[in-house]
């Protein structure tokens, strides 16, 4: 059964149809890829799912619940978190504090704990920092805990962002071009990390330009062009689909 379902989702920006009646269905536990040429509307789809944009038409259903038009934080608290194409960390803060931000909803502190510290506060605070420690360990960031996030190299920043998203304990993790700007070694590490996250029971939806990575890692792919889905299927089917080759792969070759 589907964890996330998009039903005829349409998003229009001042007359330009960025996403055109898109329907996709993502099963629990899978790694799902969305690919397409630049400007095909992939990130817009992500923004609609995570409540950054409100679609003009269509429904977004998560765990049988209509979440269309919900605010971003509500959607995050229901179990969908994301990373961004241009990394968005809390640059001035430390790596540990960045990951701690992912614990916000799971932490059960109330508003008055910002004024008075009760015994419950100390217990809750410790529990969540211990969780942060776990996630830092998982991504190999422990030695950087006190370092400023913004001054880390690109590859590390990607890891911090994923650790932060994962710290919310999501059911669906959305990755917007996770391999962008990574070198070969880092890319291999990324494949490994994504698979490990999946093995933790987290469903993954990703946009990626790097074809090797997408074909390698995803179990199912939708191809977007001009906001419309032009094909879907298993990676090997997509690779051999003439419509896709014409719209996307062919064009990609010209670029290189």
């Amino acid at each position, binding site marked *: 059964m589907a964890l996330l379902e998009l039903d005829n989702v349409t998003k229009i920006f001042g007359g330009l149809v960025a996403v055109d009646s898109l329907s996709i269905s993502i099963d629990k536990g899978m790694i799902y890829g969305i690919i397409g040429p630049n400007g095909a509307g992939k*990130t817009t789809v992500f*923004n609609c799912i995570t409540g950054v944009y409100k679609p003009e038409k269509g429904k977004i259903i998560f765990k049988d619940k209509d979440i269309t038009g919900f605010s971003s934080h509500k959607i995050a608290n229901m179990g969908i978190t994301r990373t*961004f194409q241009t990394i968005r960390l809390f640059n001035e803060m430390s790596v540990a504090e960045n990951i701690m931000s992912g614990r916000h909803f799971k932490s059960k502190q109330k508003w008055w704990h910002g004024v008075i510290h009760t015994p419950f506060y100390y217990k809750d605070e410790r529990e969540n920092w211990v969780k942060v420690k776990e996630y830092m360990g998982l991504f190999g960031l422990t030695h950087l805990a006190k370092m400023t996030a913004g001054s880390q190299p690109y590859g590390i920043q990607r890891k911090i962002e994923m650790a932060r998203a994962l710290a919310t304990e999501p059911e669906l993790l959305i990755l917007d071009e996770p391999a962008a700007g990574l070198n070969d070694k880092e890319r291999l590490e990324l494949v490994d990390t994504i698979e490990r996250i999946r093995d933790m029971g987290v469903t993954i939806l990703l946009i990626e330009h790097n074809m090797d990575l997408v074909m390698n890692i995803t179990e199912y792919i939708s191809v977007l062009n001009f906001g419309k889905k032009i094909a879907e299927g298993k990676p090997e089917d997509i690779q051999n689909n003439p419509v896709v080759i014409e719209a996307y792969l062919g064009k990609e070759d010209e670029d290189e």
Partner: protein
Amino acid sequence: MEIFFQQLVNGLTIGSIYALVALGYTMVYGVLKLINFAHGDLVALSAYIGLVIIMQLMGALSPTILIIATFIITIIITAIGGVVLERAAYKPLRKAPRLSAVVSALGASMIIENGIMLIWGPMPRIFPASVVPNTNYNIHGVYISLMQVLVLIISFILMVALYLFVNRTKLGTAMRACAIDQDAARLMGINVDKVIVTTFVIGSALGAVGGLFIGMYYRGIYFNMGWIYGLNAFVAAIIGGIGNIPGAMLGGMLLGIFNAFIAGYVSSSWSLALTYVLLIVIMIFRPTGILGERVAEKV
């Protein structure tokens, strides 16, 4: 009905002055995205400079020449002041956090304001009555003074000239380009620094005209008047849509008329408060002002 037209004329006069000062705020905001808090004080300074020139030259020149000379000299000095302000207080902070520039602007405002007070004293100074002849025209019971006519005509000419400059000249186009995207403008070969200096020159020059009008129209000037005229003009710029040049003109006029009608029909003691109530209402319902456009954040 006579009260209505009388207040309309008064409102348009004040509105023109607000508009002239508002243009300085809006142009700087457009290019630098900075609230130039010192602009109002520069306007106040120009009124004092104008007064000094008038007192020195009165009697030596014929009234018409005296007025023209006062305007020209004051405009030049104030424009230089604007450029010095930009070089000293804003340029070193272009890469700094936005709020640092705000504090720097407030510091500059303090310098000018207290500088005026140290030179000319804390008591109000009065412009001589005879600079502009006190002629009044009576049109069906509505009085218009020669000064009001001058304010309206000169402001109108200046605004049309500014509009043509911004829309028809190369430098004006560069200015608009910088307002939209400074980095892109730089990559296209536009000398951004030159545009910024031009912006301060024009903004300060228009402010100087506004300051002289305040002195000649209201006659009483005081060292900290920059704050209140500046704030009102700034509100005008926001009502029109900050960063938008026709918006500042429109906003100035609307605010002037609004003020005049409040003073005429409600009560002058609530005029200031109601001006800011208007500002708050606009901020809540249309934060980008009447002519401003909404900008979406790129994710």
